[in-house]
């Protein structure tokens, strides 16, 4: 159940890489508890947009307000935001020199100053949540892609975020492993976690999303509920994209 409270507020966002105008006048509001899927062709700026939301990328124009704090160069505000916003990456980015358990407890210990026992208990709880508790002592290199991504999700959850960002979480996975990760994401959605996902998985979007946003060429072309989006796209560009992507 989405509340009416806006948790991410993007206004007039413009970003350039050098001379390349990669994000053009983005306006976006995400409400608490809402599940957003962002889709679009590659190069449309979708990853850049969500990476701006936790300031992994810096924007030159416009404002981004996350959970009441504006994203600027201010370091204190940034630390606060990154504690509340979790991110799952396409390439998992697990720390290869640490065990699964250490991967999960690192941030709670060092950022939230949790005692080690409590951090480990939390970690085990979330490892069970993503159904991978038995791998706690293993190293990422010993796990399959699907297992690693589930660990990555658990790692983000350990910080008790209010928002989860997903940057193409299944794009680097072999097909048979996509389902196990999507299942975890669906269960998170059912618990009313605010989620912003960049993904090509339209089945997931149809099931879980409250709103689908289609981006192309750095701007939002259209956004709508899944039913409307898939059956009544308003722009030719959207229809063209849908026809390409739904032909799997």
């Amino acid at each position, binding site marked *: 159940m989405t509340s009416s409270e806006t948790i991410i507020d993007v206004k007039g966002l413009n970003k350039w890489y050098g001379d390349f105008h990669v994000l053009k006048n983005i306006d976006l509001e995400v409400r608490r508890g809402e599940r957003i899927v962002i889709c679009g062709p590659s190069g449309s700026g979708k990853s850049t947009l969500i990476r701006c939301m*936790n300031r992994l990328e810096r924007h030159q124009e416009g404002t981004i307000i996350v959970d009441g704090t504006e994203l600027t160069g201010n370091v204190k505000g940034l*630390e606060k935001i990154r504690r509340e916003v979790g991110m799952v990456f396409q390439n998992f980015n697990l*720390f*290869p*020199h640490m065990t699964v358990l250490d991967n999960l407890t690192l*941030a709670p210990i*060092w950022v939230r100053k949790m005692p080690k026992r409590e951090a480990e208990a939390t970690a085990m709880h979330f490892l069970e949540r993503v159904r991978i508790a038995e791998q706690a002592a293993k190293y990422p290199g010993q796990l399959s892609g699907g297992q690693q991504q589930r660990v*990555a999700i658990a790692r983000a959850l350990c910080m008790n975020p209010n928002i989860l960002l997903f940057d193409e979480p299944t794009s680097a996975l072999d097909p048979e492993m996509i389902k196990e990760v999507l299942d975890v994401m669906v269960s998170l959605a059912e618990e009313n976690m605010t989620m912003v996902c960049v993904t090509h998985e339209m089945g997931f979007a149809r099931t879980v999303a409250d709103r689908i946003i289609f981006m192309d060429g750095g701007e939002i072309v259209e956004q709508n509920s899944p039913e409307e989006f898939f059956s009544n796209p308003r722009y030719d560009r959207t229809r063209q994209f849908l026809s390409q992507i739904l032909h799997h």
Partner: protein
Amino acid sequence: MFKLKEQLPALLTQVLVVGAILYVALQLFHNTQANLEARNIASGFGFLTVEGGLPINDSLLPYSPADTYGRAFAVGILNTLFVSALAIVLATVLGVIIGVARVSGNWLVAHLAAVYVEVLRNVPLLLTLFFCYSTLLAFLPSPRTSLVPLGDIFINNRGVYVPRPLFEDGMGWVVLALVAAIAASAALVRVSRRMRDETGRGLHSGWMSLGLILGLPAAAYFLAGQPLEFDVPVLSGFNFKGGMVLRPEFSALLIGLVLYTAAFIGENVRSGIQSVDAGQLDAAKALGLSPGPIMRKVILPQTLRVCIPATTNDYTSLIKNSSLAVAIGYPDMVSIGGTIIGQNDQAIEIIGMWMAVYLTINLVVSLVMNWFNAKVQLVER
């Protein structure tokens, strides 16, 4: 089956090449014998047991000019090992600092580190050594006007003089106490860790260990009647007598080696840091980690794994570079060997000994580093 016809050309070539080399070697051998006879140079290692009469200032072993050449050479080997080991430790510490500084977000610090690296890598080490040595000598006063930072410590252009500890009978107990304290501390840490895992609360093992390591030996020291005397350096005439001395030759060699090698290690560390996947940085930032823990817990551990092979190279280079001691008068193995050659012309034996020792040292270092490298490799399936 053994195809003679196919293998013939290869066999023939090998036989020819090896044969040619053997032939040349034989000729060289004959020439050498003739030359040695003509110049009346002895052969063999008998000279090692002959009294040398070499004065050596810096020695880790008790040594006097009445000792044999063999002992003198042994002193040289120890000096080489000592200065190399110390330099490796210091250069590694400095090198990591420089490497991290190079990639720092602080513009000033990053550029200063870059200047340091570029200057030291493009100037010959020998020049750096000469420079350090002459600067050190130029800035230090003569023994009569030594700097006295503390009590009985004197700094002048003959070296840094400190009191030499003289161990008397009771010292054995103190050493024993120290060993016991270390063992107890290790056990304490293990117990504490287990307690913390069980109950969430451990002992303050760090402080307790410190207390043990300082306290037990101290207690033993006093109980044994303070078995420690000091041979204090005393100015007599133009020089100091007694005490221990750290000579400017040693200091210059150490400083030069450390500064030079740290530049190379710094470059290794820098390229190691930059080779860590960018996604690691992303993930660490996204988790909210601040720059300090990011570097210490995420980036540097992965860096160090990557730069071990290159750093091993730098270590063996440092050990070989320590031979430059001969140019500034520190009595390392090459210095002493060179002096012996000057006295008895037995160059072949000495050069052979040098090669054997350096090869052995480098072999050991490579083996240790390879073992270390294998141990820290990422666990994969």
